[in-house]
């Protein structure tokens, strides 16, 4: 599989603030890469560096094998993008905004504007000035600008922002179709974890500028292992009982204890018996499938703890 996007120890510091820290990743042709991170994690800075809008202070970013820079304009005919919130020229109509992009993309086909408006269900707003558009339609216009030239690579920053549930599904199906039928590679950041889980073929988690974890979507189920959730009237006492028997309970949301060991998950009756015999009968004992959101937050928290320990 050809590599479409690659970064090698990509770093960006704004003064003393390290926004992206030695980020190395690769995205192959036809992949849908989900780039997950909290606000301020470094997602948008990474995307801006991939598009040559920001110069790295270290490392490099390559797109289609070419090193990205502010004057790599010939590269951009193969790339479509949407960075942060989509904005358009408010005094121009939807059609004129797309015409501006069609011309700046040096496209000869005058029908491209009508075609993309049709694809993004914007035809009925064609002659409407964009300052009157809803946020959802502004988002559609942003995506229309990104795909008007049928790019081989789409770099999208929060593409589902501002869309209603039907719009979110529509964009997901569009991206899947582009990837499947045209082999378009998609690099997308998102905070809607469920969307990423449904769409991405590979997921990378970034936190405080560092890539914490990267995995294929078929590894997702293995990572999102079931957990045994336990609650008791005296949680601290229950914790001590479990620890005395060699388990390693961790406290999750609402103070509930969680066990990740296979032994505990496969034998919840044994845990129940242990707690009852110790005088701490469980008020909750449930095997739960961890969702991506929980996994993500655990990764992020673990990274934070690790850094605090280092300090």
């Amino acid at each position, binding site marked *: 599989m050809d590599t479409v996007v690659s970064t090698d120890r990509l770093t960006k510091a704004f003064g003393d603030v390290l926004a992206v820290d030695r980020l190395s990743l690769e995205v192959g042709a036809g992949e849908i890469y989900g780039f997950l991170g909290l606000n301020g994690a470094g997602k948008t800075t990474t995307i*801006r560096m991939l598009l040559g809008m920001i110069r790295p202070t270290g490392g490099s970013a390559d797109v289609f094998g070419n090193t990205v820079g*502010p*004057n790599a304009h010939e590269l951009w005919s193969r790339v479509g993008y949407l960075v942060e*919130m989509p*904005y358009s*020229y408010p005094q*121009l109509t939807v059609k004129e905004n797309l015409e501006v992009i069609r*011309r*700046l993309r*040096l496209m000869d086909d005058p029908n491209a504007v009508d075609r993309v408006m049709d694809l993004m269900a914007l035809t009925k707003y064609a002659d409407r000035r964009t300052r009157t558009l809803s946020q959802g339609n502004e988002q559609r216009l942003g995506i229309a600008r990104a795909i008007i030239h049928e790019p081989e690579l789409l770099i999208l920053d929060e593409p589902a922002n501002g869309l209603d549930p039907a719009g979110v599904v529509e964009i997901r199906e569009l991206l899947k179709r582009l990837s499947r039928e045209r082999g378009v590679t998609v690099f997308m950041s998102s905070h809607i974890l469920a969307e990423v889980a449904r769409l991405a073929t590979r997921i990378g988690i970034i936190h405080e500028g560092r890539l914490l974890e990267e995995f294929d979507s078929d590894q997702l189920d293995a990572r999102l292992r079931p957990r045994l959730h336990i609650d008791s009237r005296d949680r601290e006492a229950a914790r001590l009982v479990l620890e005395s028997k060699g388990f390693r309970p961790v406290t999750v949301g609402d103070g509930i204890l969680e066990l990740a060991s296979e032994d505990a998950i496969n034998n919840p009756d044994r845990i129940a018996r242990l707690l009852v015999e110790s005088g701490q009968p469980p008020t909750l004992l449930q095997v739960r499938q961890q969702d991506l959101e929980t996994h993500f937050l655990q990764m992020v928290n673990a990274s934070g703890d690790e850094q605090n320990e280092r300090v």
Partner: protein
Amino acid sequence: MKGFKNALWTEALKARRSKLPLLGILICCIIPVVCGLFMLILKNPDFAKNIGLIGAKAQLAAGSADWPSYLGVVSQATAIAGLLLFSLIAIWVFGREYSDRTLKDILAVPTSRSRIVAAKFTIVVVWSVLLSALILGLSFIIGAAVNIPKWSQSVAFSAAGHIAGTAGLTIVLILPAAFVTCAGRGYLPGFGYTLITLVAGMIFAATGWGVYVPWSIPALYSGAAGTEGGTPGVFSFIIVVLTGITGAAAAFYWLTHADQTR
């Protein structure tokens, strides 16, 4: 070339759809209309006496009601109002990409950034030249309507050259405003720069150092500072051109090399 033509088309479309051309035309109409009003007052001293201060101001600014004085006042007004108006155009053309947050959409396209910047500068210059031509044309129409004496073809040609020269110097001097707008990422720094340079230009023109200060030179050339401020020489024009080139080059460099985070 195709990239430049397309970028020019998009800049022209954005300009056409805004209200700024209308505002510019309005301001350009005001300049000859006010100057014509001065002439009307000077032609009619009783009327000037009745309106007191305005009459005195008209006497001070224009001296006598004839074509050479009238076109001289138009030239002076072009130096001051032109710097404000033409700067406003440059600030708007470059600054709206920041205020509308659309800059990021034109940074990674096959049309190179330098061609986009060149197209923006072309629009600024063409727009300013058209407005200067409007001032000149209207000045002749209003002067004829007021029916002031001492018209001759040579006076008209000489004055037209003078107004065009003043406008040209002013247009060259607004180019750094584009850079300040880009570096400041919005309209306000550009406006601040324009006001500071306007005030600095006036102060230096009054001190006699104006011939060395780029922002004083159009006013001195137009005669707005009288003869005491000095007469700009070739070196003055070189200073103006170098200032303009430096500003334009800085804007090019900024948009093609600096980090664009908005």
